[in-house]
């Protein structure tokens, strides 16, 4: 089979296994050739990004269901298959993963000096694991990737981390593991539920299970909701399951933090969007208000806790808690705008927070400390750094014309419209939006304060006097993220068009009356209500006999 055809028929597999191929190659190169490892890892990281680009051209917008399907038997005795496919939601996250992965690999060139070989192997393995999570259409396969990805991350933190790395690594590992074990139970219950309903036909196919779980009785749905909830909530992380995050972030090497914040956290929100919400519509409606409450708490709580942090990385970690609160708020608003905003904000968070960790990494590489009090006045020796850092700060605090604003606006606007009547859950979105807006105010406060303490004023610490400005490699890492932030802020339509179909489909599943409810009072000026034209809700083709492509 020649390469072109492989790209045509098995594009997702190619994307997923490119990093793995790199990792395998690295295994055969002697560890003392550190630079060879660096070059090859970067090559494969970049190649992984390049092979994901054809997705943009061939993705058929507005098509319901999954595309680029691949399906092969894997463990026939239990019905598990190697089944891949993406929709608009996973499309966005896959591209984010490949792009951030390449950047994270590039950013480690100087930062990693010990066990270079093992570092890159693990980083590349991690990349494959994450891509697998976003591409799997088989619940079993999903679970395998979900777990597989833990291991490299554990070692990345535990081996290349800073002082308390072992504590952080074990905490991360155990915490996540606890969640996933509970999830496994839920998955098995769903699996057996399907089996008993379909007279012994067993499958882990997500679309098939989706149709089955919808009819589960409410109390079972609620149990299953909680079963899935812990795994995803810990990953996001939602309040109060967030405390592994500051430790893991702070101790991880820069590349680890970038991947952790940029991609790993999205696996939680992805889980909600792919499984919890569409599979268990009844339970989702039932608990949406609670999820919204927890999200708003995370937004405000995270922002407030940011203010008293002394360590830059910890501060940014807590800001992630706050920002991911927006993402979960948008999900459980269960409105198309909230969902689109939420998915966009996941992308935005990957860009902005990923960049923030790179920015801290730049300082850490130069000074080997992350304490805010060690810095101050860095604008003078590092003007380019100051500019990029400022743009990213602004993007993170939701300045219009940068990416964060669009996401936050859509989430809040989507939350605002939630009423007791739409969606059938008792939440009044206006209050949630009003509280969440407070998070935006606080966001400006802690981010600008951080910026001021690090960048403004006179240099008080002589160690900072001659810090070199950004080098070419650091520019290469940061500039793409800055450009992406500007692009999404100024012209988000190209991204949003991918999100329209999945968002509407989810609302259609969870809240079907949303699209059918009609007006009480129509303003005289005549606003014409229009139905979304995409085929929302046709997510339901039963397990297809053959790969769609």
């Amino acid at each position, binding site marked *: 089979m020649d390469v072109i055809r492989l790209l045509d028929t098995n594009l997702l597999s190619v994307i997923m296994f490119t990093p793995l191929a790199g990792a395998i190659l690295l295994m055969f190169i002697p560890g003392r050739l550190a630079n060879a490892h660096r070059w090859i890892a970067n090559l494969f990281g970049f190649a992984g990004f390049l092979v994901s680009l054809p997705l943009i051209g061939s993705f058929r917008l507005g098509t319901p269901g999954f595309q680029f399907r691949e399906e092969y038997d894997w463990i026939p005795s239990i019905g598990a298959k190697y089944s891949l496919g993406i929709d608009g939601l996973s499309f966005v996250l896959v591209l984010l993963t490949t792009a951030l992965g390449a950047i994270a690999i590039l950013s480690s060139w100087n930062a990693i000096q010990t066990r270079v070989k093992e570092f890159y192997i693990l980083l590349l393995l991690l990349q494959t694991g994450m891509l697998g999570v976003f591409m799997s259409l088989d619940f079993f396969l999903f679970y395998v990737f979900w777990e597989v990805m833990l291991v490299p991350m554990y070692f990345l933190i535990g081996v290349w981390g800073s002082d308390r790395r072992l504590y952080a690594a074990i905490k991360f590992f155990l915490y996540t593991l606890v969640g996933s074990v509970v999830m496994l139970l839920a998955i098995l219950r769903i699996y057996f539920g399907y089996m008993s309903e379909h007279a012994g036909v067993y499958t882990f196919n997500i679309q098939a299970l989706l149709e089955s779980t919808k009819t589960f009785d409410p109390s079972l749905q609620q149990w299953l909701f909680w079963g899935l909830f812990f795994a995803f909530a810990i990953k996001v992380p939602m309040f109060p399951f967030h405390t592994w995050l500051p430790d893991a972030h702070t101790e991880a090497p820069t590349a680890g933090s970038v991947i952790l914040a940029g991609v790993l956290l999205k696996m939680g929100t992805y889980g909600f969007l792919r499984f919890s919400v569409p599979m268990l519509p009844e339970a989702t409606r039932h608990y949406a208000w609670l999820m919204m409450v927890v999200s708003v708490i995370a937004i405000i709580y995270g922002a407030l806790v940011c203010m008293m942090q002394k360590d830059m990385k910890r501060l940014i970690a807590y800001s992630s808690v706050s920002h991911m609160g927006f993402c979960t708020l948008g999900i459980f608003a269960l409105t198309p*705008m909230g969902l689109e905003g939420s998915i966009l904000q996941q992308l935005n968070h990957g860009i902005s927070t990923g960049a923030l960790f790179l920015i801290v990494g730049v300082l850490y590489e130069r000074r080997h400390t992350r304490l805010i009090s060690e810095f101050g006045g860095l604008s003078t020796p590092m003007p380019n750094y100051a500019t990029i850092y400022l743009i990213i700060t602004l993007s993170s605090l939701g300045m219009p014309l940068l990416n964060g604003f669009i996401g936050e*606006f859509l989430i809040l606007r989507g939350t605002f419209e939630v009423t007791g009547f739409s969606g059938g859950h008792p939440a009044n979105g206006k209050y949630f939006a009003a509280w969440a*807006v407070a998070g935006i105010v606080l966001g400006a*406060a802690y981010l600008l304060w951080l910026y001021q303490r690090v960048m403004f004023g006179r240099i008080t610490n002589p160690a900072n006097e001659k810090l070199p400005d950004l080098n070419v490699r650091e520019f290469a890492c940061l500039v793409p993220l800055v450009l992406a932030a500007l692009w999404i802020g100024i012209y988000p*339509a190209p991204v949003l068009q991918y999100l329209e179909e999945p968002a509407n489909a989810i609302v259609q599943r969870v809240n079907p009356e949303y699209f059918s409810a009609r007006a009480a009072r129509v303003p005289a000026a005549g*606003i014409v209500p229009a139905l979304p034209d995409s085929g929302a809700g046709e997510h339901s083709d039963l397990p297809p006999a053959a790969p769609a492509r």
Partner: protein
Amino acid sequence: MDSRYFLEHIGWIPLFPLASAALMLLFGRRLPKAAVSVACVGSVFVSFLYATGAVIQLSARPAEDRVFQKILFEWIPAIPYHGAGFGLSQFSADWGMLLDPLSSVMILVVTGVGFLIHLYSVGYMAHEGGYYRFFGYLNLFMFSMLTLVLGNNLLLLFVGWEGVGLCSYLLIGFFFLKKSASDAGKKAFVVNRVGDAGFLLGIFLASTVLGTIRFTDHGLEGVSKFAGMIDVLRSGAFHSGEAVLTAMAILFFIGATGKSAQIPLYTWLPDAMEGPTPVSALIHAATMVTAGVYMVTRMNALYQLAPDAMLTVAVIGGLTAFYAATMGLVQNDIKRVLAYSTISQLGYMFLALGVGAFTAGIFHLMTHAFFKALLFLGSGSVIHALSGEQDMQKMGALWSKIPTTARTFLVASLAIAGIPPLAGFFSKDEILWRTFTREESSIYKVLYVVALVTAGMTAFYIFRLVFLTFFGKSRVEHDVEHHIHESTHWMCLPLRILAVLSIVGGMIGISHFSLFEFWLEPVVAPVHAAAGAAEVGWTMGEAGMMLISVFVAVGGIWLAYYIYLEREGLADQLAARWKGLYELVFHKYYMDEVYDSLFVNRTVDLATALGDFDRGVVDGLGVDGSASATRMTSRLSMWWDRWIVDGLVNLSGTIVRFASYPVRVLQTGLVQSYALVILFGILLLLVVYLGVPAVGYLRALLHWA
């Protein structure tokens, strides 16, 4: 050039400054100063030309047709949502430009005054570091401000709104080596964000209730039904006084109090004077801070339907005007006097809007832009002449030393004091008159008195400033005195132009003969006949009012003259006599301290407490707690395992061990002891087997014997 060229290219007006801003911020460091100046001032000038062209082409149209809209691209594509009361709809936001009489006034003021201030800055900033950065930010500001006033929907207005806030932050903190400067920038940004939160909620509410965020569909080609926000509000679909409209109007006004420094969110503006003086002139006097006034006027159809909100606006405006003026009376920093003056004048504008005199509010906005920009630039010129001195107690007798500055400054002072026929007189008088003639409530009469007293205080504090700075004895420090010099020609030119504008700018708005009112009429037309105050003709009453205003203004000036020139030292005596009051006002009513202790420090406390909570309870008790609980359980089970489960096994072993003890003692495994035992055994056997017969044998032997 056809009659639509400038209209069709309206999108370029903000782009010129944006392009040069991008150039400065990316490559400015490598450009020579001359190139920076030409690019940045030139781009604003071109913007001004395009704005003028567009306004001329718009004014050539018949009055009812003076709305031009151009949608550049779709910014946020349509997303379905549920509106309150009309079911499913689509939300979308365009990147579109709207030119109507209101935005015409705004773009002319912004680009015109903006250009003059840019010109002035070339000289003012010539010797400062970061020249390119300054102009880059300033151009970025122009882009944001023009987006704000030209945006055809609320969200785009908000983009500009946040953009000007950002530039304000950057420019206040321009001298970032000074902590006070970066503190002031941060304060401005965060306080504004509080207002913005309200504004944002207002946008949400408006879009769910009105079904769109576009202001109007007038001027759009191919639109048959008008369904913009203002079109909906004017269509009669809503009744006056509906709670949802009042809420919306109040939320927007919260946004306005932030940006336009009204009670309770005014505290950032005096601190903003940390920025370079041209910034104070452009952003914190002439343009950005008037954004709130513009926004409320833009939404006037809404406010007309929300009488309670209108009253709130009027009361807040009147109170702010008065309150800020009192603080202006006693400040010694020349720029801070002007800052309080700005807050106070903005209060006048909101008073105007609140009483329904939208035209008067915008009129005052325009004249204020002229004379307040002039005052700030003049004060900058003074500060420049005195090598950076801002304390009026170290000024005096500068009238002949910096003549152009002094004379233009005097013109601006007369204008703000309300001396006819200068610009400020007409606009302020219009506001007073419209306040007085509102009949609905006696509150308006009170507001009139408040505004009148404020007018007197305005005249007083501005002439206090004039007398302390330009007249009397010189209190300039000795080594500064030698360097006193008039500003360069290029800095004086804007002063002269603004002085001319301050003189004639009011003429176009003279009540009842007003071109200005006629021009803005379509934008601020009453929503329903009852809402607009019945137009009263020119009466003796109004003439009498004018006389009273003039009298009050002259009185204020005389009082300043009497206290600060005629009877020197009187001011200190007065301050000493009413020490408590003086201290209170001088320390800005301790409002910064009150806000700090009420909000800022409490937030920090809360943050600290939550941080401890997070470390101690959520992480400590929750996570580490369950970890140590797990470890304790495992230790317990280890103990159980060791002592109970294994213990039983061991016990049985022990029993066997004890039972086997005797056996074990013998069973030593040592060959020697075994040999010994064997030896003894043998001996025993020998004794038994041999001994017994032997004894018997002996006994028999003895017996025989």
